[in-house]
């Protein structure tokens, strides 16, 4: 596999970076980077770290980085994760208030511990803190419960002072959304599976309305809704499919949709195959809507979606 860390890759312009990923020869990983400057979204680091966990022995080839901003990658724990020498000497600053370094989460208890101990390090106000905790919990639990990978979830987050936003990236190298969704629904392509996974009340664990006792199929819909209400980016990439929720234009009316394709979005069906799933989200803090008001909109959309599905299964009278 080959990954080139570009000069810039954030959710708004992540597409070329994903297209440049070379998944061939999965037993090796070659990492190169822009030699002038590197400014990337946490999703990029989570992806590379997750790939690194799948490589045995010393089959990771990481070139010596020249970019001035290479310290950032080291501070986020990338080289430590990959077990490759960075050749970078830096003073470790207290991480509170700025970032959550790359972290691997494999179990439910590890996740609870992470939320309890790490989210407070971002020193957020109660409302955004709730929102970030919610997102991390739902995304990481999806991996633990559905991805079927011993490596679990890899995530990291960064606070950006200039935009007053938190950016989160979470990656796994599991079975991917298409495989899990197809256990209960028909999704011919990776993008079809992503579309269904984002729909409220659709889960790969059952076709039954209301889900199973442990799964409702609502987590991704909630997170997409949080991003939509806050006018933020949200991306999901699995297999060859890619969906990006685009920012709502300022001043536009908040309207949540059950069908993610009715939101302002872009999509791809033929990206290089990522074995597993990657999710990235931006949460702009100074426009983070009150979580409770967001829930009103989510609840209404959710119930309407269930009602429509139930109605669609109604049999009609045969008039002859």
């Amino acid at each position, binding site marked *: 596999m080959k990954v080139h860390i570009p000069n810039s890759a954030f959710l708004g312009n992540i597409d070329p970076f994903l297209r440049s990923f070379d998944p061939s020869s999965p037993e090796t990983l070659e990492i190169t980077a822009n030699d002038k400057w590197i400014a990337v979204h946490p999703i990029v680091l989570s992806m590379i770290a997750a790939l690194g966990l799948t490589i045995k022995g010393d089959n990771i080839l990481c070139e010596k980085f020249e970019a001035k901003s290479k310290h950032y990658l080291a501070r986020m724990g990338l080289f430590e994760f990959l077990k490759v020498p960075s050749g970078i000497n830096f003073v470790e600053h207290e991480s509170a208030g700025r970032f959550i370094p790359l972290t691997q989460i494999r179990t439910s208890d590890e996740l609870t511990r992470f939320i309890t101990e790490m989210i407070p390090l971002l020193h957020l106000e109660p409302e955004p803190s709730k929102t970030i905790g*919610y997102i991390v*919990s739902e995304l990481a*639990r999806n991996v633990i419960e559905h991805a079927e990978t011993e490596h679990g979830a890899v995530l990291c987050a960064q606070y950006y002072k200039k935009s007053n936003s938190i950016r989160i990236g979470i990656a796994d190298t599991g079975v991917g959304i298409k495989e899990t969704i197809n256990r209960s629904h028909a999704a011919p392509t990776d993008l079809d599976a992503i579309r269904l996974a984002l729909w409220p009340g659709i889960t790969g664990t059952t076709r039954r309305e*209301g889900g199973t006792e442990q799964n409702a199929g609502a987590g991704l819909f909630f997170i997409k809704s949080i991003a939509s209400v806050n006018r933020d980016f949200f991306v999901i990439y699995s297999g060859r499919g890619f969906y990006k929720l685009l920012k709502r234009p300022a001043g536009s009316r908040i309207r949540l949709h059950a069908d993610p394709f009715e939101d302002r979005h872009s999509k791809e069906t033929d990206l290089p195959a990522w074995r597993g799933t990657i999710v990235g989200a931006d949460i702009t803090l100074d426009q983070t809507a009150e*979580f409770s008001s967001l829930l009103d909109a989510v609840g209404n959309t959710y119930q309407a979606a269930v009602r429509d599905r139930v109605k669609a299964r109604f049999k009609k009278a045969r008039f002859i």
Partner: protein
Amino acid sequence: MKQISIFEKAGAFAENKDVARDIRTREIFPTLANGEEIVLDFEQVDAATQSFIHALISDVLRRLGNDALDRIAFKSCNDTVKKVINIVIGYMQEGMGAGGPEG
């Protein structure tokens, strides 16, 4: 009447579905099966995920029907927690149609 402190079991941010499952199977179902009422006390719980609440009560509604809600009380919920509970109860009843238990 039995009272369960969600904070004591799941903390201020109730998100661990394994904990929710344990409360459901070890506390809620046995209590309701004995004909008793149960109080789920959310005092000191700042937030709860939809997944947690789903794991806590959806199977109770599915198996016992929405009449189970007459014997479950949700105590000291803040606005956020109330809304998440209402979302789960809403979509479960919507999906169950008439609201009776599944056979």
